[in-house]
Structure formats: C-alpha cells, structure tokens
C-alpha cells in the first residue's frame, strides 16, 4: 500500500452462484481524490462498494482501509470502519418511517450520543449544504428522486466521514437535477476534502466529477488514469464505452 493510498483492493474475487462478478480486482484509491469507477450495468461496480463497506464479504482477496485489513473483521469490529465511510445508495435508501431530519441525524443519535439540539444544528447545516433547508419535517415519500438523493448525501455527510461512496448518484434523474448532484459531489470534495469513489455508467456525470477514472470490465479494472489518459486508451472496450451511445 503506497503512502498516499487511502483504500486498497487486492485480488478481490466475488461470485454469486455461477455468476462471476469480480475476478481478481485490484484498485488503489488515493487520499482526498475523487475516483470514478465506470463500467456496464451489472459489471460489479455496486458489489465493489458494498464489499468496501463490509456489507458483502468477498470470496477472496484483501480490502485495506487506512492500513487496516477489513475482510476478517466481525460486524461489531466493522462499526468504527463504517463510521469513517458515508454511502449514497443507488435508490437513496432513506428510512421511510423517519422524517428527513431524523434520517440525516440518524447516525449522530445512534452512535455519537450527541445532545438533541446539537444534532438539530448538524441536520440544519447539512440540509443547507444540499440546498434543502427547512425540509427537516418532511417524510421521504413526499420527496422527488433528486431531493431523496440530496437528503441521502446529507445523511452520508452528517458524521463527517473521511470517505464517501456514491452508487449511481445521477441515474434516473433529469439532466438539471443530475448537474446539481454532480456539483454537490464536487463541492463536497473541495470543501470537506473527503476521499470519494463514484460508481456510474453515465459518462457526463463521471467526467464532471472525476480526478481519476477507472474502467471495469469482466470483473477487473482494465484502465485507470486521468480523464485525458483514459480517453487516449488503446483498449477496445474503453474506446467503445467512452464513445457513448450512437
């Protein structure tokens, strides 16, 4: 693990039944960067994020976060690791029995035992950050798709994680809302300096937020580098993928 690497995936394999999803995936993510992982739908990008969070165990391989190997950790021992990581789920995954404010303050109430007034202040601050000031008392069912994503981002940021994982943050959103989300991802990285991994198959979204881009195919990373480097790739799949729909 290089000195500036925050996260390292080494020879990670994962199968579901007879479907091989990850086949010896190697990837290093530098501290403070935004790495965009691109690839076709169903190629294992989301599985990779869930493995990073310890939600899914890999069949083999190592996951190192801040010099700590996490695949052997129990659910209890994973809690401090997870407190370093915030995740924006593909479908937002807001708790639909809780209000927006309760969703955003969930982890603070659950683990950090903060006083209620302090939690409310953090909730207000984070909702303002995602341009949803005053939405504390709304229920998730009353929100649009874009608003749900922004609340989910506020929830993920509430406990100031060092790492943010974004699973298809703009999928299913209209172009204007998608641009807002992309701007928020950039703003989060610039203002908070977090290490981010953005998984997407949407080229515009990926290009607009990436410091580096990794392209995944057949369960391995086939290209990684800056946008410029990846665009000059000689790999046929990368060329075809970056050419976009015709």
């Amino acid at each position, binding site marked *: 693990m290089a000195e500036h690497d925050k996260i390292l995936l080494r020879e990670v394999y994962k199968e579901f039944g007879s479907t091989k999803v990850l086949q010896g995936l190697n990837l290093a993510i530098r501290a403070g960067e935004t790495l965009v992982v691109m690839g076709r739908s169903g190629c294992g990008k989301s599985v990779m994020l869930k493995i990073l969070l*310890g*939600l899914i165990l890999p069949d083999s391989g190592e996951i190192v976060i801040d010099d700590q190997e996490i695949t052997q950790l129990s*659910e209890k021992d994973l809690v401090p690791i997870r407190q370093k990581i915030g995740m924006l789920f593909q479908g937002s*995954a807001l*708790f*639909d029995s809780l209000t927006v404010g309760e969703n955003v303050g969930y982890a603070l109430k*659950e683990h950090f035992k903060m006083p209620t007034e302090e939690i409310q202040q953090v909730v207000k601050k984070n909702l303002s950050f995602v341009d949803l000031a005053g939405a504390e008392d709304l229920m998730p069912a009353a929100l649009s798709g874009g608003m749900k994503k922004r609340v989910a981002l506020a929830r993920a940021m509430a406990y100031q994680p060092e790492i943010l994982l974004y699973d298809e943050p703009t999928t299913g959103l209209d172009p204007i809302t998608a641009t807002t989300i992309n701007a928020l991802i950039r703003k989060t990285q610039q203002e908070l300096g977090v290490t981010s991994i953005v998984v997407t198959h949407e080229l515009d979204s990926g290009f607009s937020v990436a410091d580096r881009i990794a392209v995944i195919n057949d369960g391995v990373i086939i290209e990684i580098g800056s946008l410029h480097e990846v665009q000059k790739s000689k790999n046929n799949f990368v060329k075809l993928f970056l050419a976009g729909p015709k």
Partner: protein
Amino acid sequence: MNKNFFNEKLRVVGQQFSQFMINLHDMFELFGRSFALLFNRPAYFRDTLAQMHSIGVRSLPIVVLVCTFTGMVLALQAGYAMAIYGAKMYVGSLVSISLLRELGPVLTAVVVAGRVGAGIAAEIGSMQVTEQIDAMRALGTNPVKKLSSTRLVAILIMLPILTFIGNGVGILGALLIAVGNLNIAGSFFWTTVFNAITFEDLLNSLLKPIAFAMIISTIGCFMGFHASGGTKGVGEATTRSVVVSIVLIFLVDFLITNFILTIS
C-alpha cells in the same frame, strides 16, 4: 429415460430438502441472535414500546372480537349438545377449559400471526429490497438488534397478555349465552368455571403464547430479511410468513399439549 426422470426428481427433492434444512438452521440462528442481542446495548426502549403498541394494543380489538364470538358459539353449540345428556349446566366448565387449553392461545396466535407477522415480514422485506437494511448496517446499526430483537421482546410480552384477555372475553361471551340463552344462573356458571380450571390449564395458557410469540416474531423477521425481487418478493415473503407461522403454531400446539399431558 425413466431412470433419468427419476434421478432428476430425486435431485430436485434433495435440493429442496437441503434448502429447507439451511432455512431451518438460519431461522434458529436468527432467533438465537435476536435473543442474545436483547442483553446488549443499545436497548432501543422506544422502538420496543412502539412495537408493543403496534403488536399488542392495535391487535386488541380483533382478538377481543374473535375470542368473544368463539366463546359465544362454543357455549351455544355445547349447551344444546350437552342438554341431550342433561349436562347443560356444565357449559362453563367446557368452555373455560377449551379456551384456556387450546382455543384462546391458538386463536390469539393465529390472529396475531395474520396481522402482526405479515406486517413484520412486509415492513422488513420492503426495507430489504430498498437497501434500507444495508443503509442501516452502513450507518453502524445492527439490523437484527434494531428490528428483530425489539419485535421479539414486544411479542413475548404482548401475546401472553392478549391471550389472557382473549380467554377472559371468551368466557364472558359464554356467560352471555349461558345466562341469556341457556337459562343458567350466572353464579352457577362462575362456580363451574372456577371448579374446572386446573394448574395445567393455566400452564397451557402461559407456555403456548410464549412459544407462539417466538414463532411469529422469528418467522416474520426471517421472511423479511430474506425477501428479494422487489415488491413481488415482499408479497411472497408476507404470504410465506403467515402460512409458515400458522402451520408451526398448530404443530407446536400439539407438541406442548402432548408434553403437558404427559408430565401431568
């Protein structure tokens, strides 16, 4: 051809049996973890109280309705049947023993399995297919502790109470029929009731709801946690939860009855 057909059938049966054993193991594991986590922090008192309200208080009207009418029907049927043998005045004994030993615990459990077990499976199943369970784990919460343990303890407390109330209103329903329809004096009805009830009946009425509570909570949570395939999967999990719970309630009812009769 016939041999291949037979082998294929055998393979399918083997697979299904293997899956059944895995599920059975996982259900016991879920129950064990839910129970063990009751003694860990955080205690989730508010969640448990909310579940007790949802499971117990909100099930009360339907339990009262079902048990009252059961007591009334039982008294009516027994009264006319026993009148043939001149034993009509002992309707109170028959109804109270039937309710305490079998009908009260089983009917209450079936009602709760239908109302609460299905609700648990649907709620946890929806959370599972919309990644809320993953989000919970990602935010450092143990979903078994937060969702399963709280429901287990809520049902363990509320089902015996509901059964007790169900038995009571069932006997009151029988009293209405005895006095109003069968012309039995109220005081005599109560005398036959209290003379008939034994320690074993009370044991039945306490042991069975505890066992049924474990079944309803574990099956509901297990089906919810294992839901997959979107809303269709949630619907299937809900149906399976009710069917499996009711079948197990009747099976365990037989086993407990057999056990109590053997030891007494």
